[in-house]
Every structure is written in structure tokens, then in C-alpha cells.
């Protein structure tokens, strides 16, 4: 009997627990259209996205945005492609810069331009350089979202202590060489002058900043690329610059990948490294990690050549075309929400990614940040002063990931003493082979 009673109680408790849940879920589901949002942000970015979804959901009663973390960028692309057309696919998703061409050709998204035209949405408030990366033939494919650009960081306090003149805000290679040499000399070799990560993204930026196209058809903006070049006057000059610093003993090589990034940041924060080039998205981590004053400049350019400006990196937001109209509408409403001046300012302050709305710079949250750390506005200034052209709008080509691997390998070889011309030529040949095979496999002409 006792046993029976216990069972009764158990059943009753469970029922009481479950009933209100079910009721809640039903009333929620009946009134709101769910909009599943796939993203790849971790840390502060993920927290801020959750916050955005919460605020958006509270701001209206029609849709319920559900953010879901999907692992890293590369994993997410595969998931997006392979779930498309099934009930498991997202309504809106974040996808990295280099997969743009692949997703575009896979035809899985409703172009942003469709919504922009229909709503007469003012796209001009969004940064033109960022927009250009994610558009083709004047059509906005996806909405630029978390956006960074590479910048040059230096330890301003260290320079002051050693009595070294800071580099100009738009430095040439030789400006940086001078500072790096002085850091090494005046610290008696205790502090290394400079590092540039072995990283294909940075390699591309040397070309963009020198106004060189990596792929033919203007980096794929006027047609599908059939030929690529990595061995150019611009890349040779950049590699010679690095080589010069290596030979002088002012350069330290941290290798490639995330370990290289964490190592160079650890060294920089510990005051053992003077200068490094890296994504502007690291800015909040750097500001939080040291009491030293942080110095920032634009991406360095070749001597005697004006900077053309660097391309953006990061990811954009896509709306899947396999969802019903009302779901797509909900996704679009959410995209508009995160692109407002206020949301973008909040995004930059929280993560270090650049606010893309022109009016964000005046928002109090960013004004406060700039007042505290004047150098924090340099990345935004760099972005705002670049005139978009086909050389600095990213390479619109499938196989950019392979390009980055090959360029990275070439950089590693050069840093370790291989002939610059030879290393670049091998990478170029390998990439041309990859491009040919990709085009053949996808039946591109």
C-alpha cells in the first residue's frame, strides 16, 4: 500500500510539474513564429547575441528568435549546406566571409537585396566597405555583421619608456621597421620588436592594401575566377619586409593558428613583444589585459605606394530561402534590429567587432569607450576612410580557404629561410590547380 501511495504522489508531482510547462509552451508557440538563428560566436559575442535575441523578442509579439551555437565557422558551413531544405535548417544564420561565394552558388539564401528593395531600407547607413564584401553585381547577398579589419598594435607605454617615437597612424613598412629595430636595440634584446602571424588572411591584406587582385575577373567580382596570383610585386615587397626584420633579429615568429595568436597576445601583454598585426576584434581583450597604453595604427603599406585599404573579415547574416514567408520576414526583422545604430554600438563595445552603422559612432557607449581609450577609435577610422573597390572587397571565389592554407605555408617557408620567389610560386601553382579542379567539379566554365 505504501508503495502504491508513493507512486501516486510521484505521478501527481510529475503532472503538476509538466502541466504548466505544456500550457506555457502552447500559448507561446501559438502566438509567435519561431525564428531559429544559427551562430558561431563564443565568449562575449555569444552573450551579446543572446542579449540581442532577448531584447528583440521583448520588443515585439510576432516572432521568437532562438539563437543556437553551431561550433566554429567551418563546421557551421557544412551543417548549413547539408541541412538546407530540411526542417532542421535555420531561418537566419551567420556565415564567415570566405564561404560567401560557396553559399551564393549553392543558392540557399534569399538575397538581402530582396528585403532592402521591398522595404526601401536605407542600406547606405551601413559601411560601404563591409557591404561590398557581401554583394555581387550591386546586389546585397547577405548582411555584413560581425566585422573586423586587421590593424597594427603597439605598446605605447613601452615606446615612451624607451624613448622611441611612435609610428604614424598610416605607417609604411619602413616606419615599422624603424620602431621594431629601436625596440630591440633599446631593450637590449629583452623585448622583440615585431611579429606578423603566418596567416593567409594577412597575406591577402598585403595585396588588398597594395591594390592588387588575387584572382582574375577583378577578384571574382565580374565573373568566376579561373586564374589566381600570389606571387606579385606587392606580396614580394611584404615578404621582403618581414625577411629584413627576421635577418636583423628584431622579428619573432609565433607560427600559425590560434596558438600563434594566443602566444603573441600573451607575449604582448607581458611586455615581451612591441608590435604585432592582428584583427581589430582583439581590442577588448588587449585593453582589458594590460595597464600599458595600447597604440593602434592602420595596416602598414608598401613604401612609396599609398594605402588602398584592407578588406573586412568576419561574418555576415543570411536568410534561408527554404522557410515560409512569415519566418523569413521574422528573420529580416531581426537582421534590421541588430543593424540599428544602438545595437551596433553595443556590439562594438561588447566584442571589439566594428560598428557598421554610421550613426553608431555618436552613441554614448562608444563615446565613453573612446574617451577612456583614444586609440580604440582607430579601427573604426580605418574602416570609414577606405574607399571600396574590387581589390579591397575580398576575394569572391570558392577555395579561399585553400588559398589561405597555401599562403600560410608559403609564409612559414619564407620565415624559415626559403627563397621568397620560389615559395610564392609554389603556392600560386597549387592554388591554380585547386581553382581548376573546383571549377571542373562544379561545372563552372
Amino acid at each position, binding site marked *: 500500500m505504501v508503495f502504491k501511495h508513493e507512486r501516486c504522489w510521484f505521478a501527481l508531482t510529475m503532472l503538476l510539474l509538466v502541466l504548466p510547462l505544456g500550457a506555457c509552451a502552447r500559448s507561446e508557440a501559438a502566438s509567435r513564429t519561431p525564428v531559429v538563428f544559427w551562430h558561431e560566436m563564443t565568449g562575449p559575442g555569444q552573450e551579446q547575441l543572446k542579449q540581442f535575441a532577448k531584447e528583440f523578442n521583448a520588443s515585439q509579439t510576432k516572432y521568437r528568435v532562438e539563437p543556437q551555437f553551431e561550433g566554429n565557422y*567551418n*563546421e557551421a*558551413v*557544412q551543417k548549413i*549546406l*547539408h541541412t538546407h531544405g530540411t526542417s532542421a535548417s535555420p531561418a537566419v544564420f551567420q556565415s564567415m566571409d570566405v564561404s560567401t561565394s*560557396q553559399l551564393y*552558388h*549553392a543558392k540557399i539564401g534569399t538575397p538581402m537585396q530582396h528585403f532592402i528593395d521591398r522595404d526601401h531600407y536605407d542600406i547606405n547607413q551601413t559601411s560601404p566597405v563591409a557591404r561590398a564584401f557581401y554583394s555581387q553585381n550591386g546586389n546585397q547577398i547577405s548582411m555584413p555583421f560581425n566585422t573586423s579589419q586587421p590593424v597594427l598594435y603597439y605598446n605605447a607605454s613601452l615606446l615612451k619608456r624607451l624613448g622611441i617615437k611612435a609610428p604614424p597612424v598610416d605607417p609604411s613598412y619602413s616606419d615599422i621597421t624603424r620602431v621594431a629595430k629601436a625596440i630591440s636595440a633599446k631593450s637590449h634584446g629583452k623585448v*622583440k620588436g615585431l611579429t606578423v602571424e*603566418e596567416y593567409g588572411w594577412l597575406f591577402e591584406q598585403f595585396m588588398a592594401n597594395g591594390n592588387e587582385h588575387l584572382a582574375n575577373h577583378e577578384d571574382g567580382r565580374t565573373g568566376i575566377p579561373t586564374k589566381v596570383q600570389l606571387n606579385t610585386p606587392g606580396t614580394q615587397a611584404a615578404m621582403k619586409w618581414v625577411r629584413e626584420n627576421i635577418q636583423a633579429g628584431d622579428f*619573432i*615568429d*609565433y*607560427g*600559425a*593558428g*590560434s*596558438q*600563434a595568436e*594566443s*602566444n603573441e597576445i*600573451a*607575449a604582448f601583454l*607581458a611586455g*615581451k*613583444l612591441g608590435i604585432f598585426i592582428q584583427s581589430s576584434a582583439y581590442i577588448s581583450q588587449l585593453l582589458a589585459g594590460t595597464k600599458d597604453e595600447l597604440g593602434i595604427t592602420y595596416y602598414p603599406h608598401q613604401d612609396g605606394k599609398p594605402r588602398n585599404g584592407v578588406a573586412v573579415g568576419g561574418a555576415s547574416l543570411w536568410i534561408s530561402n527554404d522557410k515560409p514567408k512569415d519566418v523569413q520576414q521574422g528573420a529580416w526583422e531581426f537582421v534590421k534590429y541588430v543593424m540599428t545604430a544602438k545595437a551596433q554600438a553595443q556590439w562594438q563595445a561588447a566584442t571589439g567587432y566594428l560598428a557598421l552603422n554610421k550613426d553608431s559612432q555618436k552613441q554614448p557607449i562608444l563615446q565613453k569607450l573612446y574617451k577612456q581609450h583614444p586609440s580604440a577609435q582607430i579601427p573604426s577610422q580605418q574602416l570609414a576612410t577606405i574607399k571600396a573597390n574590387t581589390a579591397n572587397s575580398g576575394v569572391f571565389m*570558392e*577555395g579561399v*580557404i*585553400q588559398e589561405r*592554407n597555401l599562403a*600560410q*605555408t608559403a609564409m*612559414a*617557408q619564407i*620565415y*624559415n629561410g626559403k627563397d621568397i620567389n620560389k615559395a610564392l610560386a609554389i603556392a600560386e601553382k*597549387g592554388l591554380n590547380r585547386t581553382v581548376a*579542379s*573546383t571549377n*571542373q*567539379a*562544379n*561545372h563552372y566554365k
Partner: protein
Amino acid sequence: MLESLPQNSNLQDPDVQSALVQITTSARWRKDSLYVTLFLGPSLLLLSVFVFWPMIKTLYLSLFLTDNLGHASVFVGLSNYVNLFKDPAYLSSLGATLLYVIAVSVLTIVLGMLLAVAAQQHLQGIRFFRTIFSSTMGISVSVAAIFWLFAFNPSVGVFAQISQVLHLPEINWLADPHFALLAVIITTVWMNLGFTFLILFGALQQLPSSLFEAAKIAGVNKTTQFFKISLPLISPTLFFVLVVTLIDAFKSFGLIDLMTVGGPNNATNLLVYRVYQDAFLNGNYGLASTESVILTVIIAIITLLQFKLLGKRVNY
């Protein structure tokens, strides 16, 4: 069945006899096959779906170029294989993998053996050391990677600081192609040691003490005891550890991904990592399938060789 046979037939006739045998065996076979399907069916089904079908599909994809959705699009025959074996980067990966596998297996077993023998000594506080020796078993790959990344950091790492104090040349462990593989080997061996130690130590503890007492009375020294008694007796365990370590080393992925991402200059781009890169970063499933097939064949050949050559020397 048997009842239906004509009663008046001559059962002495050999033809009839063999027919009878056939009928009974086929009846038994039918009954058995029911049980066979019942018992093997579920696992066969699971294996087909999750093992055999993917294997066949991999073999199939290795003969194709794949499009941006990962579908087979252009049949290229064996040219994926031919191209791979002509690619110097792939060949250097192959070399690096063999070097890595051999170094990891040998070092793990030798060091594991040393620790196991050391832990057998009856000393005060030996239990503490036994725990320490096997502790890396409980450490996950990511924790180990972070720990060693800090140690190898060229600016603030332990090794850098030691070499600075001793005025030794600075080694850039993870960025120098000559040292990166060594760094990963050190880390892997360290990771593997816990498991190897525990297994070998367990095997040594199991040996009957009477043998050693007899050897001691006969005046056999410790070294000879080890090589003539201990080693032959634990050879099955040693063989097991060797096979497991070797196959594990071939499949090494986590440490590479966390420490070097295959770099610098492909020095640590081992075969498994290359498969991952080609499939999940480059989206080139055809090539990745080709690489998987090659890797499978290599592991199969080596395991077979181990069983053929070493298997004979093992005393069970």
C-alpha cells in the same frame, strides 16, 4: 518432411541415403538460419548503416571530384590517388606521420616500461608516485594542449626561460618546422604514458613471485631476471599496448589541431589531420575520401605485419 517419404523405399540405397541427409541438413539449416538472422541481424544492420555503407561510399567518392555541396560530380577514376602520390606536400605528410607514429610508440613503451619497473620497487611513498605516473590518463587532450602550449611559448614559456637562464640558444618549438613535430611527439608521449604505465604495471604485478624467488636462489641478477622472465611473460600485454599505441598515434588529431593546426610548413600535418582539413575546411570530399582510403590501407597493412611478425614471438 521425413514422413512424406515413401515408406517402401529402399533405405539401403546410397542415393536415397544421401537425399535423406540433404533433406535433414537443409531443414536444420533453415531452422538455424532463423536464429542466425535473429542474432546477427541487428548488429549486421547497425554495422551496415554505420560502418560498411560509409566505407563503400568513401571508396566511391575517392574516384570523383565533388561539388560545393559535397556530391560526386565528375568521375576521375584513380587520378585523385595519382595526384596525391605526386604531391610533395602529401608525401611529406606521409613521412611525418610514419616518423611520428614510430617515435611515439617506441618512446611511450620504453618510458612506460621504465616507470612501471620503477613503480614496482618497494619504497616509502611509492603509492604516491604510482598515482602520479598514471595521472595523465585523467587529463583531456585540450587541457594537455594548453599546458604544453604555455610551456612551449617562446616568450613566457618554461623552456624559453630555462634556456635564457642557461644561455642556451632559443628554440621556437611550435613555429620552427624542425622542432614542431618533436614538440607534438613530446606532448603525445606524455599524454600516452599514463595508460601505458598502468597496463604494464598491472601486468608486472600479476607475475608469480615464485619465479623471481627461484631465480634469486639460482643467482640470476636483476637485469637478466627482467629480460628472461618478466619481459617474455608480459609479452602479450606489451603486444597489446604496442598495437593500441600505434593505431592511436595514426589517429592523432586533437593535439595537432590545438597546438599547431598542421603547421609550420606542413611539418605536423599528419594524415588524419589532412583528411579533416580537406573534408571539413576545404569541402573537398573526393580528395578527403581518397586520403581516408590510403590511411585505412596503411593501418591495415601495419597491423597485419605486427600480427605476422611479432605475433609469433608473443608467449600466450
